[in-house]
């Protein structure tokens, strides 16, 4: 996913362009949860709202035009990822502004090795009541994910590392789309 971001590092965006770019990248991110509470799509209003609560830093203005850059994109992406994991905006508000851009990139890159847990909703028959159960997901290689049920296998991460080492010769690691 870090590769996806590298194209956007030196770009400038208007508000609409930033929303479009965010949606494009969110769609490409692996296994992000859709639990009905958090949509994957953002629009201009969402971004302005994030700005007003301090999650996204303010844009620069050139004349009357707001100009957004990589750090804004980065923060929106991180905020959306955190939301999809079930964090509330209040929690994100208390943690995200303290992080430097480098720390956020570091955190995102770290997830290259270990992917965020996927919360698999099991929709019961009753009116969308959601029972959440946590599965662990590990990236074995590019586009290859290992899903482990932690109730049955405790050492998912070490298993994943072993498998990743073994699978490296089979996994096609050419640059993505």
């Amino acid at each position, binding site marked *: 996913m870090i590769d996806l971001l590298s194209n956007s590092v030196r770009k400038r965006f208007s508000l609409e362009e930033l929303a479009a770019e965010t949606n494009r990248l969110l769609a490409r991110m692996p296994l992000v949860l859709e639990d009905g509470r958090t949509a994957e799509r953002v629009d201009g209003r969402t971004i302005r*709202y994030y700005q007003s609560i301090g999650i996204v830093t303010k844009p620069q203005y050139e004349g009357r035009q707001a100009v957004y850059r990589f750090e804004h994109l980065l923060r929106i992406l991180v905020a959306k990822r955190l939301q999809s994991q079930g964090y*509330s905006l209040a929690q994100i508000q208390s943690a995200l502004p303290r992080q430097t851009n480098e720390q956020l990139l*570091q955190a*995102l890159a770290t997830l290259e*090795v270990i992917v965020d847990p996927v919360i698999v909703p099991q929709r019961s028959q009753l009116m969308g009541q959601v029972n959440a159960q946590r599965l662990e997901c590990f990236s074995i290689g590019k586009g290859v994910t290992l899903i482990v049920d932690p109730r049955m296998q405790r050492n998912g991460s070490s298993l994943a590392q072993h498998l990743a080492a073994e699978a490296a010769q089979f996994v096609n690691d050419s640059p993505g789309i």
Partner: protein
Amino acid sequence: MSWENRMNDFNRRTRIGASFTPNRGGFRTLGELIGLPSVGADTLDSDNSGGSAFALQRVVMRVQVTGDCAITETEQHYRNPCDIALDVVHTIPMSAAGAIVAFEIRCGKRWIAGDCRTNAAARAAFTKAKRSAYQSAMLDQERDDIQTLKMANIPPHAELVVKLTIIERLRVTDGRFEIRVPTTIGMKYVPGIPVDHEGTGSAADTDQASDASRATPIVRLDGATPLDFQLRLAKPISAIEGSVDLVCNDEKDDTMLVTLAQDATCNCDVVVRFWSREARTLVRAYGDGKHVMVVVDPPAQRQPKAEMQREAVYLLDCSGSMQGANLQLAKSVVTHSLRALRPSDQFEVSAFNTDELRFSDTAKRATSSNIEAACTWIDALTAGGGTEMIAPIQSALHAKSTPQCIRTVLLVTDGAVANDAVIFQLAATMSPHARLYTIGVGYAPSTAFLSRLSRICNGSYLPIAPSVDWLTEFADFDAALVGPIALGLSVDGCVLPYKVDLFAGRSASFIIKEKLKHVRVIDAHGKVIGESPVTPISMSLGALWARDEIMRLEDRRAGFPDHAADVDVRIEDLGVRYQLQTRLTSFVAIDQSKKIAGKSIAMVQPVDAVRVDQQASSMNLRVFSRCHGSGDSDFGDHRVYSLADDFAPDALLGAPESHSITRPIALQQVKAAWRVLRAQLRAQLRITDKQNEPMRWYLCDAMYKLTQEPLKASIIRHAASQLLKFFCDDSNSQDSHSPEQAAVYELLSSLGNLCLPVPKQPRHHFILLADKLWSVVGVDLEVVRFLRTTVPQS
């Protein structure tokens, strides 16, 4: 390509220079990597308050009352939660008429006093100290009641305490002293087109409000800052009351110590009112040897004003920020004032949010039928939308009054706007056909804005909060609307270069630079109002005198910005000479004892959300639908829910529909509250086992779902059918149902019928059914009442 190579390639291509180390051991989520607690399996629980995640830990206030003045020492305690040095920007509220006379910081054990310099000098010193890695702090004034506190280089995991000393006069009304200490800043509607975003606030600077980004601080979505408040009064006190719960203790040194209840937070103005049992004279004077402060009370019995006809104009703010008890209070105030008019008077009523709504195009006579019609019109108003104040004020002040009439304009609002400057200019340039009086409603009205506006228009200002018995306060204020009872007060033998008027119900005061032992107060015609000897006071009055001067200069500048240059020079001079915080002078304090090495990170400290009460009224509540497409995060142009604050049935929290984003907090609290409520409902109904008590389980979820979603026919149908299915499964035939079961069955059928697309299904029908259902199932009446008020509108 291995992971390391990929990261190096990323760094090379982007030149960002981040350091990447893979997280080989353990399994951590993005949130945990950033420092958030891990999310449990039940991700739908309410939020972590995160109180210590921000820099501000608590606020300590110590207030001492001396004579007619109060000295407040405010300590803001900050702590750096990061591993590197921290720079914090915090927008803090200030008393509108207070004089900030001292500024100190404490890093470690020593207090370091700051001094007040011109803005340029203070900023240069602060920037230099910041670059030199010294701990420093600076106070920058944005408005009379908003200061920006900037701190630099707080060491990792260390504390920094900032202490401000403020002197102000108490507000005295009919023998009652009032101290008002603001603890947070309310959100403001920012009109205009965004042009820049210089400050750290939530709104951008616009063409109408060029400092909006510095005057609209970011609001905390969750949690609040603890407040430690203490007030010391000299006895004897005959009565005391406050806007929040007070605890009063008599002390040994013949004073009374007043504190707040345990869980006080910075979410509203702390207002304490007390009546002194000391005999009071009409005129009081205090002297410090160089200045004399004179306080004049209005006479107790009010002489009825000459029978002049009144033309009363009412402007009612019904924007989104007035949601809830604020608007109800405003409506009560206006209807009360309307009913006090005489039949020979005339009136006009307008309401405004984004648009202006008028009761009638022309002024109406105050006959009982007209007044009742107006009251009905007012009752039907709902809160929502932005606050475009300019047009209604313009039309109210511009219109010529009928001859032989006194035209008074009463503006009832919470003052939550950011384009103060434009409104002041407008008000000052209107020909003074009318006096404008302002009433600030809410827990944190914009006192500075509204009091200045009323001063510019020769009126006066009254703040009232929903929790207070406003009737007595307003009765005096209303009586004062006809005009002052004495004009042009001054001290015999001295010339006062400005006008001081005496209004009914409220004391007037002024400070003169004289050494006197005795004062005699006269009005503009030379008539003696009263006399008094000058009581020595230990506090220095020079700062208060200078503060008054600066306030008058700012009033003049607000109305006539062409004279800004002269006014600014004088304000700057006064600020430096008397060491006062002003718009052009700033306090700065630097600790040069040690350098804090390493990089630093900047953090903006958000302010607490203002407390909002909403009285339960099932008829007037507007229930909003969730923004389509997303949950907590998005803020669409749809409405959001009203519901319980801290889950008590009688207190509800609302959020407005607005063109600009003014109330994001409400949605978060709404969602959090609903989650907890559902858990409580389950506990209430003792639902533990879905197998054994299916009906209760599904019922709970059904009601929860029904009140969560907008009234979608499909959902009700689904809920009703589910309930019916399980209900009927319990027994074979309908005849064997108990009376209770029959009632529930009937209710469920009606619920199913409700979802037919009948356009005007009466809402209270649903409420009655819900009532019946709940009473059968046996839920606590409190919960029933609460749910009733949140039933969505059909």
